[in-house]
């Protein structure tokens, strides 16, 4: 196999036949002998004091083994350490309420666990849960960010001084004074990022078996990062990591909602310990919609200024972030929007500040894109608002302020170094594919007939590939987000590769195998990629999120393969009776320099590696590598969208969508396209459909898929994709990331198009989701 054969090839995802024919094995498909089932009794109130919990009736219900409340876990689960809060980019937390996996005196969001019931059958557990009699004293709930910030507003936790989780200024306002004083135009806008429910198609499932003889715990669960869960759970249950195994093979999507630990991750193993039986909990869809860590939930107040000729000057961004009732383990990660709000452009200065606010809702945490979709939306909206003020074509304004290709690596306003880019190239290609000039002419015609048609751009960038130790070490509180891989070559030449990243839909079983097949020169069929079992592979794996799997994990695989090849050379030197320095490895063969015929195939060397070797050379052909990237990687691209708004109904229809993206070198173009399709669809969801809506008392109104409207494939338009390739200098594969690009890029293109469509009515800004009801109202108001 030639080195260039598999990397870059459009091969089918090797995991698909199994998954789409129903042969996947998700956690709920697994069972254990003697398995019992757990149901969680949850608070119906957003905020209340627990007066009493009556468990007697539930205990007598058929099949019930036990009903447990906070008291019962006191000696088993170590307190609030269960829900650590990473420093991320807001290290100084002002109010950080302790979180226990099960409520003690006060419940602070609808759905917070108050008791668990364990029964022989799942239905029996659900029936008995209904019989647990909890008496509550309702407390005032604080639901809105700005309400929660007011002095004297109700407190999300009665025992805390106020609701301000953090107040972090990244660059003070004075730094942008000059940029606003000297400006010809200034635009101001409030931009909303409403709360989203992540809705992985597989809800969360935890199955745990505690073995009282061995004092070992095994957990099977749906998570994006089993090693982190092992770290948290072993700590909370007072066990060493060596006696806890977390297995997470097939996982049906995560979108960020399966990174941080959840109450059930502790409760299920703790109950297994209590009842000495394997225990399973399968989240219902109702629980998932209500309690999966939510995304977004932010308000941005932004000002931007420019010179008459379109030179960008200053930006000021205030982010108000709804943390929910407790700060998420990685909840402050979304503050990265404050460091990225300048987007793909050169600004003289940017000031930014983030305020984290506690409310009586489920916690927010990273959701596909996490901070970067918000930053893109801010940057791209502000550019368009400036373009309107300046009467410039939004394309020209963008071009004028891009850093040129030659300026990379480019240091942006917050000191982050953008590794490589050619922003004009992707924009040019997108304009051509879209037929921009022609579309503008058609728009002018349509407007004459009174139609509301619009065109919107998003020349997005992102930062991904978490990440370099200098940033990620302090952000997590000590652990550097490098990535690990282990390559084991067996005597007959089969290759097992254990990765620390995770696959929950991304297709990395395929891309990882492509990288390894080329690096080792063995057929892809001979390579097995294993993820998601903490008893296999290297000591720690960091998981999949933040578009890091290829740019960090893929490189680790490549490096582990390189180590194997190095060892292989030693073995080959021995069997070819040549000096190690003279061995060349090429296309799966080891040969003597200048004598390609004197060669041994990879498999022959593998076999020899387990045979008699000269003194000093150990048997075996395997290696572990950890890769800590020296920098982040910075994908980018240009999305262009056309919409038509029905002025009578307010319905916005996407009529054309073009995306030209650049994620560096490509391992598998089909997988890149698939990630973009999915991401853009999810972004259409945010732009036009999705929003978690609560009433004043904290009851989730959008609690089913009837009311939480995820678009289906019928609502997704044809998406035309193309790409440019600007390799990353950050890693030897030249790769970046593409897992989140679609969600990062698309909302801005869609909303910019809608704003453009309704601009003849004098409407400047439209918030998400741009539902017909809302748009109709805005149109009606504008016409008054």
């Amino acid at each position, binding site marked *: 196999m030639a080195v260039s054969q598999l990397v870059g090839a459009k091969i089918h995802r090797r995991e698909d036949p199994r998954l789409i024919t129903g042969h996947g094995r998700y956690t709920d498909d697994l069972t254990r002998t003697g398995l019992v089932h757990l149901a969680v009794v949850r608070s119906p109130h957003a905020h209340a004091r627990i007066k009493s919990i009556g468990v007697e009736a539930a205990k007598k219900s058929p099949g019930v083994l036990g009903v447990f409340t906070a008291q019962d876990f006191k000696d088993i689960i170590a307190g609030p350490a269960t829900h650590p809060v990473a420093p991320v980019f807001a290290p100084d937390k002002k109010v950080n309420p302790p979180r226990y996996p099960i409520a003690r005196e006060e419940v602070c969001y609808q759905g917070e666990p108050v008791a668990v019931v364990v029964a022989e059958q799942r239905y029996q557990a659900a029936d008995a849960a209904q019989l647990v009699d909890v008496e509550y004293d309702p407390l005032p709930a604080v639901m809105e960010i700005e309400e929660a910030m007011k002095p004297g507003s109700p407190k999300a936790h009665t025992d805390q001084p106020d609701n301000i989780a953090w107040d972090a200024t990244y660059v003070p306002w004075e730094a942008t004074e000059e940029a606003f004083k000297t400006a010809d135009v200034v635009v101001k806008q409030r931009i909303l990022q409403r709360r989203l429910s992540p809705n992985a198609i597989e809800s969360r499932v935890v199955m745990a078996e505690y073995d009282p003889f061995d004092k070992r715990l095994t957990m099977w669960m749906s998570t994006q990062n089993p090693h982190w869960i092992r770290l948290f759970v072993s700590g909370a249950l007072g066990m060493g990591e060596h006696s806890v195994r977390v297995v997470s093979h097939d996982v049906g999507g995560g979108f960020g909602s399966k990174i941080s630990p959840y109450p059930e991750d502790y409760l299920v193993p703790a109950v297994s310990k209590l009842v000495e039986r394997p225990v399973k909990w399968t989240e219902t869809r*109702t629980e998932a919609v209500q309690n999966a860590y939510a995304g977004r939930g932010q308000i941005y107040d932004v000002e931007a200024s420019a010179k008459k000729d379109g030179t960008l000057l200053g930006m000021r961004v205030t982010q108000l972030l709804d943390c929910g009732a407790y700060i998420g383990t990685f909840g402050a990660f979304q503050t990265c929007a404050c460091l990225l709000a300048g987007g793909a452009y050169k600004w003289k200065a940017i000031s930014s500040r983030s305020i984290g606010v506690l409310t009586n809702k489920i916690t927010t945490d990273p959701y596909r894109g996490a901070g970067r979709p918000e930053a893109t939306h801010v940057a791209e909206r502000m550019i368009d608002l400036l373009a309107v003020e300046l009467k410039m074509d939004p394309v020209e304004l963008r071009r004028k302020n891009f850093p040129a290709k030659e300026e990379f690596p480019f240091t942006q306003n917050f000191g982050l170094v953008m590794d490589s880019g050619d922003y004009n190239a992707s924009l040019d290609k997108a304009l051509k594919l879209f037929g921009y000039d022609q579309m503008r002419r058609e728009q002018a015609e349509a407007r004459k007939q009174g139609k509301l048609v619009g065109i919107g751009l998003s020349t997005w960038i992102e930062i991904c590939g978490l990440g370099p130790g200098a940033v990620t070490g302090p952000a997590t509180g000590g652990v550097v987000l490098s990535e690990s891989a282990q390559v084991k070559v067996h005597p007959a030449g089969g290759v097992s590769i254990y990765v620390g990243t995770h696959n929950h839909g991304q297709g990395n079983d395929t891309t990882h195998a492509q990288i390894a097949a080329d690096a080792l020169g063995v057929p892809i069929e001979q390579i097995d990629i294993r993820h998601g079992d903490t008893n296999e592979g290297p000591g720690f794996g960091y998981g999949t999120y933040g578009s890091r799997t290829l740019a960090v994990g893929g490189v680790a695989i490549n490096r582990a393969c390189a180590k194997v090849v190095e060892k292989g050379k030693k073995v080959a030197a021995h069997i070819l009776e040549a000096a190690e320095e003279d061995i060349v490895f090429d296309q799966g063969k080891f040969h003597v320099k200048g004598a390609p015929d004197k060669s041994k195939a990879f498999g022959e060397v593998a076999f020899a590696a387990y045979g008699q070797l000269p003194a000093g050379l150990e048997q075996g052909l395997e290696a572990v590598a950890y890769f800590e990237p020296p920098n982040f990687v910075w994908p980018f691209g240009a999305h262009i969208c056309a919409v038509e708004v029905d002025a009578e109904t307010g319905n916005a229809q996407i009529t054309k969508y073009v995306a030209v993206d650049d994620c560096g070198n490509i391992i598998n173009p089909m997988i890149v396209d698939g990630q973009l399709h999915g991401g853009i669809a999810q972004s259409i969801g945010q732009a036009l*459909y999705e929003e978690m*809506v609560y009433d004043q008392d904290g009851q989730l109104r959008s609690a089913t898929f009837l*009311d939480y409207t995820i678009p289906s494939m019928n*609502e997704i338009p044809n998406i035309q994709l193309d790409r440019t390739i600007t390799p990353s200098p950050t890693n030897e594969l030249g790769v970046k990331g593409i897992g989140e690009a679609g969600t990062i890029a698309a909302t801005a293109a869609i909303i910019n198009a809608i704003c453009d469509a309704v601009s003849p009515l004098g409407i400047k800004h439209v918030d998400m989701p741009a539902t*017909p*009801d809302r748009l*109709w109202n805005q149109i009606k108001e504008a016409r008054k």
Partner: protein
Amino acid sequence: MIPAAFEYAKASSVDEAVKLLDRLGEDAKVLAGGHSLIPLMRLRLAQPKALVDINGIKGLDHIEVKGSKLHVGALARHVQIHSSQTVKESLPILAEVAAEVGDNQVRNMGTMGGVIAHGDAAGDYPTLALMLDADIVTNKRTIPARDFFKDIFTTALAANEIVTEVVFPVANGPHKYIKFRRRLFDWAIVGAAAQKVDGHWRVGLTNVGPTPVRAKAVEDALAKGAKPEEAAQHASDGLNPAGDLRASPEYKKHLARVLTKRAIEQAQ
């Protein structure tokens, strides 16, 4: 997402079903396609003590024209209704509406009788039944549609009464049903139907109140020669719809007018 425990019995005739209902009492429910009842049970919003499954009853899924009437059996499924040549010829608006109910799964399971008996204001058939003066036939009696839909999820049916068929007039003149919704498989946020019967317009509305609505004021205005646009202004007369997450009351009334206008204009 886990229903409470219930008993289950399968009937093979209407008589048997009625006997079972009588024996099991008030808390028993008929199970047809299950696509309204089971979702409610999963959320424990309905906790019937027993289900009487009528899917095994033969001959309740008939679709036939007798004289000037189209008879649709209670167990005729959406998929049968929208693919039936008889319906396409005798009442094409019904076939078109059936094709737009829910998604494939819903259309494969959901039934005429189930939609009518459920009395959901967002159901599409009730609007047609009401505006076309259909008759709802049960094991006991025949109930005109105008006397059938009483309130939200409330009909004239007694606890042990089973819908056996719905009888529509044959009408194949100009017609149009416009269902305004966000996603292809969604219920109507608002629906508007227009059908010409014997030279006169019939106009009906979906999901603008607790029951389906016949827009008499629009019909009258049209009869007096008003243009569709003018007549449609009356579509919201007397409406007092409840708001929900998709639409405010005001927006629903507005949609009633816009969709009524479009339905009449686009009817063919």
